[in-house]
């Protein structure tokens, strides 16, 4: 569809794969700032459930999204273990807490299949495509959608507190 006179956009086709629960997921490597283990997490009261706290990353404060909770999976056997996959989304940085990092794979756009539109639940709403690779299924995630759903899911904090205030 692209006219031949237009320069073809160089498109990064590398993806970072990781494991959450028993499934394999991937995000575009271009958005990945850093991968680190551990890090002391400061909890944030009243934050969306999947946001388990904040970590300090070289002068920056980064919210941590527990991908097990975000994807609606049971909590890990060893709580708060895992690896931080730190993403930079424009000015916002987020850390995805995943069970295990895997390799970086290179996948051409046309090899990525549309996800099944069965149920847009918390497990699948951020999945933009799937890819069968060496006997396993890789689910591609859109980082923006991971965060956006959390913003919507935010508890109506102000209303709830306000409602508790009554007269004499």
């Amino acid at each position, binding site marked *: 569809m692209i006219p031949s006179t237009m320069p073809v956009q160089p498109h990064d086709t590398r993806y970072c794969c990781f494991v959450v629960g028993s499934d394999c997921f991937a995000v575009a490597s271009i958005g990945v700032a850093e991968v680190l283990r551990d890090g*002391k997490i*400061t*909890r*944030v*009261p*009243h*934050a*969306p459930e999947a*946001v388990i706290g*904040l*970590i*300090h990353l070289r*002068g*920056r*404060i*980064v*919210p941590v999204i527990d991908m097990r909770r975000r994807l609606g999976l049971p909590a890990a056997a060893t709580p708060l273990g895992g690896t931080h996959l730190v993403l930079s989304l424009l*000015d*916002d*940085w*987020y850390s995805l807490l995943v069970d295990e990092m895997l390799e970086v794979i290179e996948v051409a756009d046309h090899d990525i299949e549309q996800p099944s539109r069965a149920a847009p639940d918390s497990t699948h709403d951020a999945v933009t495509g799937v890819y069968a690779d060496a006997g396993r299924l890789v689910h591609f995630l859109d980082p923006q959608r991971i*965060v956006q759903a*959390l*913003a919507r899911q*935010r508890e109506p*904090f*102000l209303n709830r*507190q*306000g409602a508790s*205030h*009554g*007269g*004499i």
Partner: protein
Amino acid sequence: MIDGADTELDRTLIESIRDPLTHLVRNAVDHGIEPPAVREAAGKPRTGRLLLRAFHESGQVTIEVQDDGAGIPVEAVRAKAVARGLIDAAAAAVLPDERVLQFIFEPGFSTAAQVTSVSGRGVGMDVVKTNIEAIGGTVDLSSYPGLGTTVRVRVPLTLAIIPALVVRCATERFALPQAAVGELVSLRADGGPRIEGLAGADVIRVRGRLVPVVFLDEFLGLRPTTAARENGTVVLVRVDDHEFGIVVDGTQTGAPSGDPSTPRAAHAVTSMEAASLSTIVVKPIGSLLAQMGIYSGGTVLGDGGVVLILDLRGILRAKDLPPQPRRGDEAVATAVCVTDNYLVCRTIAGRRIAVPVDAVVRLEKFDGQELQAVGGKRLVRRGDLFTPVVDADMLLGTQAAQEDAGSVSLVVLDGRCGGIGIAVRQILDVAAADSILQPSIAAPGVAGTFAIGGIATELLDLVALVPTAGSHS
């Protein structure tokens, strides 16, 4: 007039607020300030006054655009909100004025009918709000008919260095901007300062004033609310016209951390110097968490730990605390204008009166036998405490009804009003006024009349009580 011209702000933020600010200034000049002839007729100076103020506060930059114009006609906004279907008529009738004004920020609120007096003011206010919120800021608006309008824009600092007080609560630490902190009060179980409940709301008594308090652990859901409240520290903070206390376990250096129940041998009132102040670098915590409105940022302390900075204004909003007027007689006068809730009572003679809830310390019931007369004054005794009693009907200049043995309620006012008790037949309700106050001219003891719960109610003139109070104290 420009105040705070040297208040610094990040360059990217300046770019983002230029247009909204220009709009606000233009609005104030176009629609707020009246023509000279109108101003003169209203007894104001011919020249209008527009004040631009900028200052740092709570890790944010506040910019105020204040005019001394006609103010926003609240009733017109209310009518328009109903006409546009934003709220139904019944709900609109009881909505407090300040909430009504928020409709100004609705998209297209004013563009529909430019001809009405209210429309001009709202043009593009939704755009202003959207732009400011896009950079994580807030816009507040207050307006008093005939006195003018103030629009307050608050934008976060992307990077700022502020002095802060680090407090402990449950197992967590939080930072509070020192600029808002007035003093620290250590709670003592043995007769020292303690939290009291005034009609369901927790308050602490500080030098005769009653200040509402928020339990930080409860507010943040940090632990079950069964925790002992006898120990701990109340951080008294002031935000805008509100003063409130935040109950925490202690300050950073108060006691060995980890054991919040350790009794501290602190003075009842700790001076600020004794508390642990640190200079912190305010860092953003990401839009997802900033949107929650209760944290204005985070910081990394010397030990490498991440600490959230509490947004005091957010706490105030969430808890919906009533305004606390400043100390002094002048404050009583403002309380009459700005207070939200009124105690509605029926006097012994049957008149329906209102008293600002802010001014009420406690409510009591008593019968005639408990009254004691000393030197022409009537007093009611509670333990060692004598409260002078005045019949509400006497204040209003009506003949008190025949003294009878029925039960009488006493509305005890705070020290600013002389600590007197006003005797009434019955406490009816606590409610916000439905209408603006119509000042009264001839009636003594009455500041004006307004509707509460749809019924005309007279507001007791507390300012008139102040001179008589002076003789007691």
